[in-house]
């Protein structure tokens, strides 16, 4: 079986590098194919898209492939695509999508930060910070600062009784709770006018349907 297959697509040429073959074999076959193409084709420049299937090339392997193409000035690589990604990156992506669980007491001066959404069961003391890049759900007393959408995600929400909190922040919106009465509310969100608003958790289904569906699926 051939380890390098040339395919013509409507957006250009694609070279499929077999993921089941030894890398040295693939590079040897690739080089041979490029030599052949260099002889057979006319003088125009050709761009290739490289597809590595279920193999992820490391930096050294990618550099080896680049070096092979450097020997053929008319041929360039448009992209090197793989079906798979680095474990750490994918794990992080998975973690960002999961709802994290936190709990206990966050004391004055302490900060707990999460990537993604967090369900926190416990007490947030004054001058303590609970922060998430996604939404924050709190079962317990909040006397400190809650930050949702800390990376700028204005669609994030805070669910819980924030009436005793010092402040809440969603993306770049800040609400100093001490200045107003939000007793009886259980949902804080940024509305279409980019104003931080307080309402009832039952509104979540209408206001953030995607988040609501995600919770239902859990």
């Amino acid at each position, binding site marked *: 079986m051939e380890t390098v297959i040339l395919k013509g697509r409507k957006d250009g040429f694609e070279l499929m590098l077999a993921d089941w073959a030894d890398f040295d074999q693939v590079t040897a076959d690739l080089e041979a194919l490029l030599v052949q193409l260099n002889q057979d084709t006319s003088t125009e420049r050709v761009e290739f898209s490289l597809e590595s299937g279920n193999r992820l090339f490391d930096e050294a392997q990618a550099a080896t492939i680049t070096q092979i193409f450097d020997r053929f000035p008319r041929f360039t690589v448009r992209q090197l695509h793989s079906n798979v990604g680095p474990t750490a990156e994918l794990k992080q992506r998975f973690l960002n999508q999961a709802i994290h669980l936190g709990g206990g*007491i966050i*004391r*004055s*001066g*302490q900060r707990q930060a999460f990537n993604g959404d967090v369900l926190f069961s416990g*007490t947030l*003391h*004054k*001058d303590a910070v609970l922060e998430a890049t996604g939404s924050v759900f709190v079962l317990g007393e909040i006397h400190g600062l809650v930050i949702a959408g800390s990376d700028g995600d204005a669609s994030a929400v805070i669910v819980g009784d924030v009436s005793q909190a010092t402040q809440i922040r969603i993306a770049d919106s800040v609400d100093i709770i001490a200045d107003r009465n939000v007793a009886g509310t259980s949902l804080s969100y940024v509305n279409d006018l980019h104003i931080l608003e307080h309402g009832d958790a039952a509104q979540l289904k209408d206001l953030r349907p995607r988040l609501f569906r995600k919770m239902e699926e859990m």
Partner: protein
Amino acid sequence: MGTSLVVTSGKGGVGKTTTSANIGTALALQGKRVVMLDLDIGLRNLDVVLGLSNRIIYDIVDVATGRAKLHQALIKDKRFDDLLYVLPAAQNADKDSVMPEDVVEIVNQLRDDFDFIILDSPAGIEQGFRNASAGADGAIVVTTPEVSSVSDADRIVGLLEQQEMPIAPRLVINRIRPHMMTDGRSMDVDEITKHLGIGLLGIVVDDDEVIASTNKGETVVMEPDNPASQGYRNIARRLLGESVPLMAIEEKKPGFWARLFRRN
């Protein structure tokens, strides 16, 4: 092997040194061998509270830097036979003159000779606090019923919990004014204990005699009938494992005649 306890609070002026001195004295009154370490480098006053200032020759910095042996720097309180000692802090040294490992070394040297090693921490959460807590098996967190003091105590408890000491931190609520708790103008004992989420070791009422005795270089715990003294004595008994109920906080109500003659 002795138990080392750091007395700390975060906020200044809540009575850490007074608490250290009184708990240490109360333990000595119970027949325990106690040594107290003043770790407030540059602002020492544990020796003043105990009336031992005149007897200082060497201090903890001298011990840490090897200028003096540990036993040379310990000051014996002669009122308690061979039971109560103080290792004073330096008055004219930088607070970084002593490092956490120096304190651990000193505490370990003292463990065989003493039942309790009490480390009087300075206010704040910087070097002095780190020194004091490094050598401790457990912590006594002192707070007053003020919101700022409770908030600082909360911060301290968080830092202590990160250290994972063998003995969990316990709380002393100092300078309680019963009438303010009764009429709801200050946080009450349950409120503070619940908020901080650590075990309550004891309460001490605010009493003029605490200041008066300190000014004389004595500890109030020597006066058995004083309510503050009873608070400290109860704390010492609880540290020794006794089950002592919490003293009732009662405001002394003036009698009929007292009220009558106080009227304008």
